[in-house]
């Protein structure tokens, strides 16, 4: 594992790819690898791109990669697509739009299937970002589909979120008002070459205006972009740069990252406790019998649960 970690830090492509697979497959050594890489993380800017299917996220990512490369930055992309809930298979097509960078050795693109995690963001995505950060990429772009409320996840793993919206979403604007709009730092109205873009912009600004009625200076930027016609990119890049500057100078970035670690800790502790319950308490083998006892009214449910838990914890600590 030390060799793998060292090669990742040295930026060796094969090692980076292997490290991500290790995390994705939850293979032996995953925790050790993340621990070894940890001292090397925290340097990359992590940029999320989210929005409804087909909004132009990948096309936009392709242009953002080009912009970063012009500045001499090394860029990595993690593009998450949903796995089929029926077969577990996935068709990962985001990369198709970014293949113009396929031969650039300072661009690393990785497609990931959500593997059953709603909204596509999973622990594996979090780990992949860490691997890429440790490997020395200046910018890591994470593309996910925003569906319903699950996309809230993306704020938890990125420094800045671009929410991509497109005209003609119809009812979706309603859902947006109900919470999705909480998640964007910068609102990108893509496909501005199409009809309805100005109307959408007005609607978005209207909603944001409500949210920030008393603090207009905090209002999020809204950028009109046409990824297809390559229009509006400079303005978007400038807004993103400014937002980053603001975040780091104000100390908000540090705060954001610490909050991220807090959420991660909670998630990991919960997962480990769950595992303990499953393995040590042998929950799944016992549960039928316990249910029977409760059904037959042989025990009081809460009393039984609290006593079992107490006994289990006592046994564990001995």
């Amino acid at each position, binding site marked *: 594992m030390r060799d793998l970690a060292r090669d990742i830090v040295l930026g060796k*492509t094969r090692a980076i790819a292997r490290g991500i697979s290790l995390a994705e497959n939850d293979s032996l050594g995953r925790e050790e690898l993340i621990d070894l890489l940890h001292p090397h993380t925290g340097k990359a800017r992590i940029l999320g791109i989210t929005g409804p299917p087909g909004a132009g996220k990948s096309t936009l990512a392709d242009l953002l990669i080009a912009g970063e490369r012009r500045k001499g930055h090394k860029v990595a992309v993690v593009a998450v697509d949903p796995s089929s809930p029926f077969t577990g298979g996935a068709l990962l097509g985001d990369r198709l739009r970014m293949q113009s960078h396929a031969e650039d050795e300072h661009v690393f693109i990785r497609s990931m299937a959500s593997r059953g995690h709603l909204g596509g963001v999973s622990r594996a995505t979090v780990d992949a970002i860490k691997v890429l950060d440790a490997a020395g990429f200046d910018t890591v772009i994470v593309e996910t589909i925003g569906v319903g409320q699950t996309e809230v996840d993306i704020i938890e793993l990125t420094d800045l979120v671009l929410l991509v919206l497109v005209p003609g979403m119809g009812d979706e604007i309603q859902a947006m008002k109900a919470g999705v709009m909480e998640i964007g730092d910068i609102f990108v109205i893509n496909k501005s070459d199409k009809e309805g873009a100005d109307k959408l912009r007005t609607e978005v600004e209207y909603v944001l205006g409500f949210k920030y009625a008393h603090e207009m200076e905090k209002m999020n930027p809204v950028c009109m972009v046409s990824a297809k016609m390559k229009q509006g990119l400079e303005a978007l890049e400038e807004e993103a740069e400014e937002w980053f500057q603001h975040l780091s100078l104000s100390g908000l970035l540090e705060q954001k990252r610490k909050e991220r670690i807090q959420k991660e800790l909670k998630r990991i502790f919960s997962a480990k406790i769950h595992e303990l319950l499953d393995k040590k308490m042998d929950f799944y083998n016992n549960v039928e019998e316990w249910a029977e006892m409760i059904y037959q009214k042989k025990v009081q449910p809460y009393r039984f649960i609290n006593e079992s838990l107490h006994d289990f914890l006592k046994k564990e600590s001995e």
Partner: protein
Amino acid sequence: MKEKKLRILIAKPGLDGHDRGAKYVARALKDEGYEVIYTGIRQTAESIVKTAIQEDVDFVGLSLLSGAHNELFPKIVELLKENDAEDIVVFGGGVIPEEDIPFLREKGIQAVFTPGTPIKTIVDFIESQRND
């Protein structure tokens, strides 16, 4: 232990612009439960190899209709080897004359599927190569 999820890159080297067959195979393999990465038409050998390595795939499936398979397929196998990635299994498909197949097999293309091959045959091949 649960089986490892296999990842497959379906790539189209060469200059022909017809990707119906490649897309069909990509979708069919997805339906079989594999994670399939599709990168579109006119990919250079270099970009296919770089993609395969970054995506850490187990298989690369090449599709070609333009007749350049005898140069391009072996070139990709060669480049994978140069990048210490010879463990990635390469198979090919498309319009490939029967008499070219032995040559391609000799050059390290592990299987060649001509048009009309049932998807089951490809799946059986993939499963036979599973190495975990």
